[in-house]
């Protein structure tokens, strides 16, 4: 006997997404019922000896109790236009879902020996953590969290899914998708609320044609790279991303455009902004230029020649050390450089940008310095690009693709910042 909870979970998700995509909530009661019926019938259409639901199950697997419940609540909301739980209840659950997904999923891809998934096979520590979360949720009256935890653990006791791992009863990638979708929906609702202040809402997060074209361009080039790396790694490395190849020159172009934007800004705003502002914009332009040059290695070669000559002159006898040092020196520089960049990125996107929109004093300071703040969709584009290049592209040269993406996306941020009124 196969898993009833698993199959019904898939069915509920299928029906919910069907109702969601047809915007059933905004239609008349009769139309809503029709859509529901159509979805239910569609599930049972046989294709090659298997009902359509079986194909959905093959694609998404068995659903956890949380997804089962969220899909059920979603269907109820779509059909009756009423929520059974408050926004606060949902918020608590979604935050918990996102946090636990961040804990679980990255490690499953093999980054470390430690795998939190194994905790679900049996661990007192895990049980204790669940107890504490459940008690906290109960005490603070996050009823939906308590319900999901209790339902999931209860289903685990009864072995209602094919899995013997407690994690699979509590979360799955679809519940994470629902949580992220809910967050996006909440953000849109807030934006609509702010629509009564059009000068604020419209311009800080707007899409321009050039931004959309750039996103498409970067996405296509990255996906071509991904496809190439998956099928013919040699071609990817020796043609696409090679030294002085297509991707490398495009990266140079991206950074060059970025530096031009900065220099033009310095020129046009020279009489209306402070020296500090102009100076920093100039420095940003020079930084872009430097990185563009670095791509074609003139900076690197400069450093190499210098260190080789220097050490050769000063350390003629210890050849082994010299070799190690030189190689070590270049490698060490690169390591510090890349780690430093990573920290700066996190600070920029995840700390400065949110602080800008929350604290007016910081916003004023950032504007006076001329630091461009990314729009939400620009940050998301950067994240997606990073995820695709770092996680999906199967080649040691995936960094070249990320540099290309970064070149154009950073130029976009500088050219069309969220705080454009400061420029």
């Amino acid at each position: 006997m196969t898993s009833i909870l698993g199959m019904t979970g898939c069915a509920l998700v299928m029906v919910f997404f069907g109702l969601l995509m047809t915007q059933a909530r905004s239609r008349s009661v009769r139309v809503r019922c029709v859509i529901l019926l159509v979805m239910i019938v569609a599930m049972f259409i046989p294709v090659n000896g298997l009902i359509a639901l079986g194909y959905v199950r093959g694609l998404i697997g068995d659903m956890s109790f949380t997804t089962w419940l969220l899909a059920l609540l979603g269907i109820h909301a779509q059909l009756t236009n009423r929520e059974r739980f408050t926004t606060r209840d949902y918020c608590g659950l979604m935050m918990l879902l996102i946090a636990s997904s961040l804990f679980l999923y990255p490690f499953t891809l093999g980054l470390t020996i430690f795998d939190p998934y194994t905790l679900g096979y049996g661990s007192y520590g895990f049980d204790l953590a669940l107890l504490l979360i459940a008690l906290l949720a109960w005490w603070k009256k996050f009823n939906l969290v308590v319900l999901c935890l209790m339902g999931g653990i209860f289903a685990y006791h009864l072995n209602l899914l094919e899995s013997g791992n407690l994690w699979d009863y509590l979360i799955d990638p679809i519940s994470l998708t629902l949580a992220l979708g809910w967050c996006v929906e909440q953000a849109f609702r807030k934006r609509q609320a702010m629509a009564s202040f059009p000068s604020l809402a419209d311009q800080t997060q707007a899409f321009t044609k050039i931004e959309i074209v750039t996103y498409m361009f970067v996405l296509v080039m990255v996906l071509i790279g991904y496809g190439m790396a998956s099928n013919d790694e040699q071609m990817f490395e020796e043609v696409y991303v090679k030294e002085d190849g297509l991707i490398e020159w495009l990266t140079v172009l991206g950074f060059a455009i970025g530096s031009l934007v900065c220099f033009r800004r310095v020129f046009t705003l020279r009489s209306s902004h402070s020296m500090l502002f102009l100076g920093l914009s100039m420095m940003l332009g020079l930084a872009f230029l430097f990185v563009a040059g670095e791509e074609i290695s003139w900076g690197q070669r400069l450093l190499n020649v210098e260190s080789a000559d220097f050490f050769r002159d000063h350390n003629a006898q210890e050849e082994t050390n010299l070799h190690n040092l030189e190689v070590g020196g270049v490698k060490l520089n690169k390591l510090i450089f890349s780690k430093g960049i990573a920290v700066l990125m996190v600070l920029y996107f995840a700390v400065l940008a949110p602080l800008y929109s929350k604290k007016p004093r910081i916003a004023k300071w950032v504007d006076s310095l001329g630091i461009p703040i990314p729009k939400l969709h620009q940050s998301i584009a950067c994240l997606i690009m990073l995820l695709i290049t770092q996680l999906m592209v199967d080649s040691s040269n995936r960094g070249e693709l990320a540099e290309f993406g970064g070149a154009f996306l950073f130029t976009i941020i500088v050219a069309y910042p969220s705080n454009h009124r400061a420029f």
Partner: protein
Amino acid sequence: MPDSSHNSPRSLMHWGVLALVLLNVGLLALTNPTRAISAGFVVEPDLSPRDPSTTPIYESRFVGAGVPAFSHSASMVEISDGRLRAFWMGGGSHEGKSDVAIYTALFDPATNAWTRETPIIQVDDSQRHLHRNIHTVGNATIHKFDSGRLLLWYVSVSVGGWAGSSINMIHSDDDGETWSAPKRLVTSPFFNLSSLVKSPPVRFTDGTIGLPIYHEFMGKFCELLRLTPDGKVLHKQRLTKGRRTLQPAIIPRSETEATAFLRRSDKAPRRAITVATSDGGLSWGEPLILDMPNPGSPISALRLDTGELLIVFNNVPRKRDKLTLAISSDEGVTYDIIKEIESKGDHLSNGFGYPWLMQSSTGQFHLLYTWRRERIKHLTFNRAWLEQNRSSR
């Protein structure tokens, strides 16, 4: 609409919910103890000293009658009457297609002949039993219990290539004539994607099984799955991380020690990798890159009574043009080649690979391997031949 119910005084139901929480999680702790308890490996004894024949035997033949046009990834087990039963994936044209099935055939040592192969797992059957769409099947790995029950693990794919694989398990109590419905093993929270099998399982002293598995989606790494005889997953331990290794073959050395030979999966170095454990598989050390070449293909090994390892591998850094039998006394760090089993491959034919080395109860050695992706080749040799060939080199 504003809701301030979270500020109202607690009702009886709320206290009832608290009791439920404590009961539910309490039950969890009682029935779900920490599973990561080592039980100690069972070191499979080398039976070749009990083989009375002093005449060297070295014979080879093809498995089955060549019914499927494409054959790959074989495993084999000795059944109750001394015959050998082999399992492999075969099909019309290519791996990864929906006409691929898991085939089986029988070998009778008395007549030195194989029966004609029959399919036991087909895509349609799997689809019906697992209630989800199945695109292809592959990689059958067999194990026999002392009770005579046969356990077969195989891989099925619903979406995508081998990176989208999941492991299923079937069992037979009549030496492989009839089989149970498949049971899915859930080994990953990410859509249960990308777990595969290749090498034979190890046994633990408490009766549980350690199935070596590997992942191919994004990360490429190896794990040891701890199972009960009826397929309940107890624990999972990573052998490696990152993207470098696949298809672990684990050979215990003592109750606490074992070596795993790993196929390398990145571009360089093109050499085999081993990891070792000294606590019964609970933790594994740093990967060691051997001198042994590896063109991205799995290795099979057996331990002799002398403690040495008999290893079958592709002794070339690229392609699978050579298949070699070697012996090592230091877990693969150094090795002596006993015989080049196959040495005339060409890049078009995909060479020779996926070895499965085992012993029958008579002490004879049996090796199955993929021959040019068209057939499975079966090689038989004995201890006498081994001693003769290792001393002559």
